[in-house]
């Protein structure tokens, strides 16, 4: 990890030195320099994204990744970083914004200088970027969470949803999307939706309630990181590991214990490595004019397929990445 980060910084420093020493020599012109701007440095999620971007750079051959970002998650810090990137005359800036509006003026300045600007993970307002790459779409998340439960239940069964608050917009959208594809799984019955309010104790109690009310429950889907951890703990404490599978959306570092105990067979979240890779690919294709960001455009993301832009030039990368006992150890220390 720290080696990777040091490597990324070293690459960035070397690139900066090369540019200042040689000015606009052939080497600097040959390489497409893509700046990957994180919300803050020292966050495992972004370190992993940077590794993915490096992978993309190696694949295309003539690209160079400058992984950078402020030390704390502030918009001010990102503006400083953007200004210094403009001064370095990078070819593309890909940013995960701390604030969708505050960074717009700085990014507009970059675009006026001919720099390709895209946002990823956390978006920038449309006027401040050419396109935005969202990690996933509501539709894909809804499809994924029911598939995770169904994959473990070849003969069908009863599932329940443990959500956050009853008013949470993204939770409700995901649950609606999930219900809209339930007819693909005729043997799976959704018996209840309960709300744990993203509080560990309430989620735990709601899970206990589900286990009591539906003694033959087969799976609990919790599309919230607090809920999924609490549900897994409650299932474990009730001695129902193996009978009730807890799945949904969670972070590998938080779910490692549940996967180890068997309370959760698998769960999903977007893969930061893939996200960094796709972002670098898109930035490269836009910066080299191999593609243009406009509604309806289809832009290649290398091994991740193509991104299709909607009316606001936003694209979704892929369905969330699934984690289980085979890969949890690899990711639990990353994010």
């Amino acid at each position, binding site marked *: 990890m720290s080696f990777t980060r040091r490597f990324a910084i070293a690459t960035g420093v070397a690139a900066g030195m090369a540019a200042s020493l040689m000015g606009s020599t052939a080497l600097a012109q040959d390489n497409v320099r893509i700046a990957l701007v994180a919300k803050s440095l020292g966050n495992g999620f972004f370190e992993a994204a940077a590794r993915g971007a490096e992978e993309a750079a190696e694949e295309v051959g003539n690209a160079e990744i400058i992984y950078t970002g402020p030390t704390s998650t502030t918009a001010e810090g990102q503006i400083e970083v953007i200004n210094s990137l403009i001064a370095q005359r990078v070819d593309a800036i890909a940013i995960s914004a701390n604030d969708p509006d505050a960074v717009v003026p700085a990014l507009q300045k970059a675009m006026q200088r001919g720099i390709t600007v895209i946002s990823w993970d956390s978006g920038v307002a449309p006027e401040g970027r050419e396109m935005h790459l969202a990690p996933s779409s509501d539709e894909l998340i809804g499809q994924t969470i029911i598939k995770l439960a169904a994959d473990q239940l070849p003969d069908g069964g009863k599932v329940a949803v443990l959500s956050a608050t009853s008013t949470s917009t993204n939770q409700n959208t995901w649950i609606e999307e999930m219900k809209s594809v339930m007819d693909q799984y005729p043997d799976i019955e959704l018996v209840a*939706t309960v709300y744990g309010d993203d509080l*560990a104790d309430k989620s735990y109690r*709601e899970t*206990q*309630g589900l286990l*009591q009310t539906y003694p033959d429950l087969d799976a609990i889907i919790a599309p919230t990181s607090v809920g999924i951890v609490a549900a897994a703990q409650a299932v474990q404490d009730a001695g129902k590991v193996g009978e009730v599978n807890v799945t949904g959306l969670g972070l590998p570092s*938080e*779910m490692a*214990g549940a996967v180890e105990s068997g309370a959760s067979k698998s769960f999903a979240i977007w893969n930061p490595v893939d996200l960094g890779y796709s972002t670098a690919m898109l930035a490269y294709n836009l910066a080299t004019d191999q593609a243009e960001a406009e509604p309806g455009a289809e832009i290649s993301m290398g091994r991740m397929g193509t991104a299709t832009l909607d009316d606001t030039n936003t694209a979704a990368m892929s369905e969330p990445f699934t984690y289980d006992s085979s890969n949890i150890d690899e990711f639990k220390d990353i994010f």
Partner: protein
Amino acid sequence: MIGQALKSREAILAGALILLIIVVESRFSGFAAPGNLAGVFNDTSILIMLALGQTLVILTRCIDLSLASNLALTGMVTAMINSAMPGVPVVALIAIAVALGLLMGAFNGILVWKLDIPPIVVTLGTLTIYRGIIFVVSGGAWVNSHEMSEAYKAIPRFEILSLPVLSWIAIAVIAAFAVGVNRTALGRAFYAVGGNPSAAVYTGINVGKTRFWAFVIAGGLAGLCGYLWVSRYAVAYTDVAGGFELDVVAACVIGGISIAGGLGTVTGAVLGALFLGTIKNALPVVGISPFWQLAISGAAIIIAVAFNARSEHGKGRIILKKAEAHS
């Protein structure tokens, strides 16, 4: 004597609790089974202990809103020590938790005692301060179950006579309170200070110091509960027990601890916490729409308080009549 006991607040509350359990049982068979009720008691243990601590504070005409933040901070600190140094024995961690809780309670107490700041202001401030310190020490990161040692997670779950240690700790605390509040000078001083502070001063009781001790004891309990909470749910994050301080106050109010101070019993606080805990455990299983649940628990609190207010009122009149009759 027996008639009086039956009319008491505690008897009414106990009756309401039994009625509640019967109603839930009629809708969800198996709720009143001994095993399930033991589970409800275990789940309510932390609320009971905090409500007892809060009872002392309220008896002295104060209020402590920082208990949940205190709990969350001590929980986070013990979890971080455990994950960084798994070799530290859990007994030492519990001692650290209690000590840290006592310290935070003492900080509240000093501000109330020496600077004479209203307790609601002091603890509203420390509520945010203690919660803020969690962000500082943890950097916003979680401590997850796989980072905690097995021993750390096992203690509250370990069963003695088929009851988890968490329940036994709560029973021990209830017993200690029953003796301490009714049979020690300090215990009686809490009532005296809340009942009539001026009179308490004339009997030689230091009002500020008594309040200080109430805050310290409540803080120590919150510290102990901090370890128990984090170990039970096997996760420590910045928002642990968010909003729980209001549950604790609600449990006291339901239990008939008078917010005006000087009135209330250990039994009342325990029953109040159990009543709230039973509702919390019953709502998920009786199949009431989650949209109604908040409103229902709120209504239960108001009804309980209305009952208390009525019984308090009646009692006052009876005393006057007796006094009239004697004269």
